[in-house]
């Protein structure tokens, strides 16, 4: 048996690990692999950081290979280990902490470093880059305590950061030294259109501005410009460019220029040392996008596996801005110069722009704004270098040759594409992988393909190509490009379903699924709970709640924890309790050996680590109402002290909170909702990040709505100001019912308000008669609720489900 050779990868990022994935497929047993990464995380998709920041993805979702993947593939992974030197004599790599690892082959993939403007004050707290998870986390936390953000640099990265910060609720100003934004990717016309669109989304711009210094004691306070003007800000994100990270080459005697110098097979000048990714320079070019890096990775993997391969010949790149609501695409050389000519169309009404640049009969560049559907095919034509003579107008107008009945269109281009060409750059999906998914894994719709291969799941720039390939491989078997319904079981939307239920008076989940022709008659964990909610909301008196269609938490009326135990939260109205109740909670906790007691974020006591079979017994002894800390219902009404004790208080916040909690407890809703009442504008109960928050002012109450303090922070909007407690109750009831009737299942008020618009809500609640009608409906529903804990304690048939079946008997 041959001893595997030792392969060390330095840099646990996108390019390096991609090459390893490839290598594992080609030669699984040739190497014993060790990876060093300076970050504490397993390999993740850096591209998706912008979507994480924008709130549409969570950090955990962007991990490409989790810890298990390394284990399963026998890869030794050292995170938090920065390699400082490669000793090419002894053939070992040495980390900053002194760790050493021998190698037969070593690959450098250290990516790049964000370029930080060397201006005075750039080292202050609150000045950051946008490169890794840590930067994202810094932005999340800054947005919690500060309001104003500045982004220096209006390139792709800067704008994506700015969009994310807007979503985090910050006021964002983008500073750019050029007179127009994204000048490296767009021409002036497209840039102007983009700016208009972003301004409409709330971004502010300061153009032709050069930053001079940053001031502030400890933390940044102000950004000064060379023209003497300045901008107050609490956070500065620098996105002015990246530099290939050549530190290791420098300390190890490896040749570098801008980046580490490599040949077409990713060799450096040093034997057994290869490099790839953003840290390298190939034929004079250092790339800052993943598609070329993946191509480099494929070549390197083949070479390391001993498989014959053509060298890497460089890439033409395309870019797409990942900002929702704006479609921008550019590729190749899109600024016309001498010897090239440009054709363009601009439609200011539709907000679209398209320009193609031609040289010597070939397409060399393109810019699209507003409608980027043709991006993929234009890009392909740039890459292939085919002649487009006689087809210029068709390309410009976007009428495909297929439509015109000529050959040479996109279909034949896709047909001729080699199997190992990467179609989706973000996720490194090849044409071959798409073919395999369609032919062997039964993916016959775009959605299925996306789920199965991840193609088009990041930036979406390749959608047209993926759809083209789907048609190519599946032929007539292409499924309906299914309209996306509330889940995979139906193509109907929430509104369609609710409308049908109402008009046909469908009364059970089963009936809905049958009549509305669910394609999965059993439903799933998405549609069943939502139908259960819609039916209950529409017919509070007649519908019998189906507990099997509720999640664990709501079936067992306690929160399931990761180890299968539960946590119990008794209701403590308004956060106000009594010594007697505290004693009772404490003694129950002791009696049942509760390992952890904690105050929740909403001023309640949470008893953790309770065994399921103990739940009913605990409730019985507690004799308190369920705090509903588990359901899609009213969670808590947080209060401050108010005028009872506080010297600032103008109104009785505790009494108001308790009244509200008693009135609305147990109310089911599309998602959980939280309320709060503060006794004065100091707002100690943090009422303006709640689904509904009441803030007392002298002689009146302000009602704020649509706030959220979760992953994506959203501050409330002021709904109205009222004089009396009764009015507070009326508006709250009406608001909650309107939300219950119009929101989608699982949609928090913050998203709901963003979707339907504050004005719509204001309008719906404007007239008192409308409010009273809503209040009447919510009252009806509330009058039918009961306390689930009590119900279970008193009912053996329900109670049995908490116990395991006694002992099995052998027969």
């Amino acid at each position: 048996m041959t001893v595997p050779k030792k392969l060390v990868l330095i840099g646990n990022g996108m390019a390096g690990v991609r090459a390893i994935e490839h290598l594992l497929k080609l030669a699984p047993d040739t190497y014993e692999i060790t990876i060093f990464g300076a970050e504490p995380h397993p390999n993740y998709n850096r591209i998706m950081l912008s979507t994480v920041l924008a709130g549409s993805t969570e950090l955990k979702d962007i991990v490409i290979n989790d810890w298990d993947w390394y284990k399963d593939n026998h890869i030794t992974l050292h995170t938090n280990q920065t390699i400082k030197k490669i000793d090419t004599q002894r053939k070992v790599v040495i980390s900053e902490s002194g760790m050493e690892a021998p190698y037969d082959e070593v690959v450098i993939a250290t990516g790049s470093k964000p370029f930080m403007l060397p201006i005075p004050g750039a080292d202050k707290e609150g000045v950051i880059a946008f490169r890794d998870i840590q930067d994202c986390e810094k932005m999340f936390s800054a947005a919690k305590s500060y309001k104003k953000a500045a982004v220096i640099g209006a390139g792709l990265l800067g704008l994506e950061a700015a969009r994310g910060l807007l979503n985090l609720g910050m006021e964002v100003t983008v500073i750019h030294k050029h007179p127009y934004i994204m000048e490296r990717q767009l021409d002036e016309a497209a840039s102007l259109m983009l700016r208009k669109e972003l301004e409409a989304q709330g971004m502010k711009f300061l153009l032709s501005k050069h930053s001079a210094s940053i001031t502030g004691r400890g933390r940044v306070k102000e950004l000064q410009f060379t023209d003497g003007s300045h901008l107050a800000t609490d956070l500065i994100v620098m996105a002015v460019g990246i530099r290939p990270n050549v530190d290791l080459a420098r300390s190890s005697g490896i040749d570098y220029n801008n980046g580490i110098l490599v040949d077409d097979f990713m060799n450096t000048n040093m034997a057994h040392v290869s490099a790839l990714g953003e840290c390298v320079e190939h034929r004079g070019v250092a790339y800052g996008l993943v598609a070329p890096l993946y191509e480099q990775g494929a070549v390197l993997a083949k070479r390391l596996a001993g498989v014959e391969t053509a060298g890497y010949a460089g890439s033409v790149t395309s870019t797409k801005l990942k900002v929702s609501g704006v479609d921008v695409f550019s590729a190749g050389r899109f600024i016309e110069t001498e010897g090239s000519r440009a054709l363009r169309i601009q439609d200011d009404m539709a907000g679209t722009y398209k320009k193609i640049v031609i040289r010597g009969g070939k397409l060399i560049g393109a810019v699209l704004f507003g409608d980027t559907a043709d991006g993929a095919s234009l890009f392909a034509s740039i890459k292939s270098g085919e002649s487009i003579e006689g087809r210029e107008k068709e390309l410009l107008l976007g009428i495909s040759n297929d439509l015109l009945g000529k050959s040479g269109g996109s279909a034949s281009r896709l047909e001729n594409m080699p199997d190992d060409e990467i179609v989706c750059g973000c996720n490194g999906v090849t044409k071959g992988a798409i073919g395999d998914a369609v032919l062997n894994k039964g993916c016959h719709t775009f959605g299925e393909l996306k789920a199965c291969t991840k193609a088009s799941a990041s930036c979406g720039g390749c959608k047209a190509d993926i759809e083209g390939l789907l048609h190519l491989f599946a032929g007539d078997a292409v499924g309906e490009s299914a309209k996306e319904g509330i889940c995979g079981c139906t193509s109907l939307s929430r509104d369609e379903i609710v409308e049908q239920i109402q008009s046909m008076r469908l009364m059970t989940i089963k009936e809905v699924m049958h009549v509305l022709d669910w394609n999965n008659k059993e439903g799933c964990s998405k549609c069943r709970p939502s139908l259960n909610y819609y039916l209950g909301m529409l017919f509070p008196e007649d519908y019998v709640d189906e507990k099997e269609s509720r999640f664990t938490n709501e079936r067992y009326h306690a929160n399931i924890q990761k180890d299968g135990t539960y946590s119990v939260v008794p209701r403590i109205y308004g956060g106000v309790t009594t010594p007697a109740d505290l004693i009772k909670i404490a003694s129950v906790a002791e009696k049942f050996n509760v390992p952890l007691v904690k105050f929740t974020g909403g001023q309640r006591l949470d008893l953790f680590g309770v065994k399921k079979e103990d739940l009913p017994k605990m409730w019985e002894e507690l004799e308190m109402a369920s705090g509903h800390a588990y359901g899609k219902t009213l969670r808590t009404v947080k209060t401050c002290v108010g005028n009872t004790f506080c010297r600032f208080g103008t109104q009785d916040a505790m009494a108001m909170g308790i009244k509200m909690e008693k009135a609305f407890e147990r109310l089911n809703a599309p998602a959980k909702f939280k309320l709060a009442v503060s006794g004065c504008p100091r707002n100690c109960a943090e009422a303006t990040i709640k689904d509904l928050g009441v803030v007392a002012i002298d002689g009146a109450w302000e009602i704020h709505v649509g706030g959220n303090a979760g992953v994506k922070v959203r501050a409330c909007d002021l709904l109205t100001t009222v004089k009396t407690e009764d009015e507070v109750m009326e508006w709250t009831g009406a608001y909650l019912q309107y939300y219950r009737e119009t929101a989608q299942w699982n949609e928090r008020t913050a998203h709901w308000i963003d979707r339907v618009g504050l004005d719509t809500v204001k309008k719906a609640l404007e007239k008192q008669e409308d409010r009273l009608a809503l209040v009447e409906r919510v009252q009806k529903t509330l009058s039918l609720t009961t306390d689930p804990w009590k119900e279970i304690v008193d009912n053996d048939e329900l109670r049995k489900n908490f116990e395991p079946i006694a002992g099995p008997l052998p027969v």
Partner: protein
Amino acid sequence: MSKLLIGKLSDIDVRGSRTVRVKETEIALFRLEDGSVLAIENRCPHKGGLLSEGMVCGTVVHCPLHDWKVDLHSGLVKDPDDGCVTTFATEIDPDNGAIYVVI
């Protein structure tokens, strides 16, 4: 192989579940709408979630922790995830509704 008497049909709600411990193994028994009872090991292959607490849709149970879907007949995890759970044969006495599990 041994056959164990677990309980009777009415111990389990339709589309509900109960658990039983046999030596080291916790078994989850599900009663489906068609009257059958299926038994699997009560441990999700993902992170050990208790499948007995999950929602039953047809012949599939959704793990309560991260929504993996496990087929109760085969024990196989449904796409896009991978894995499987041990299944146990069950018998129901049509006369008195007694449930047996074969281990």
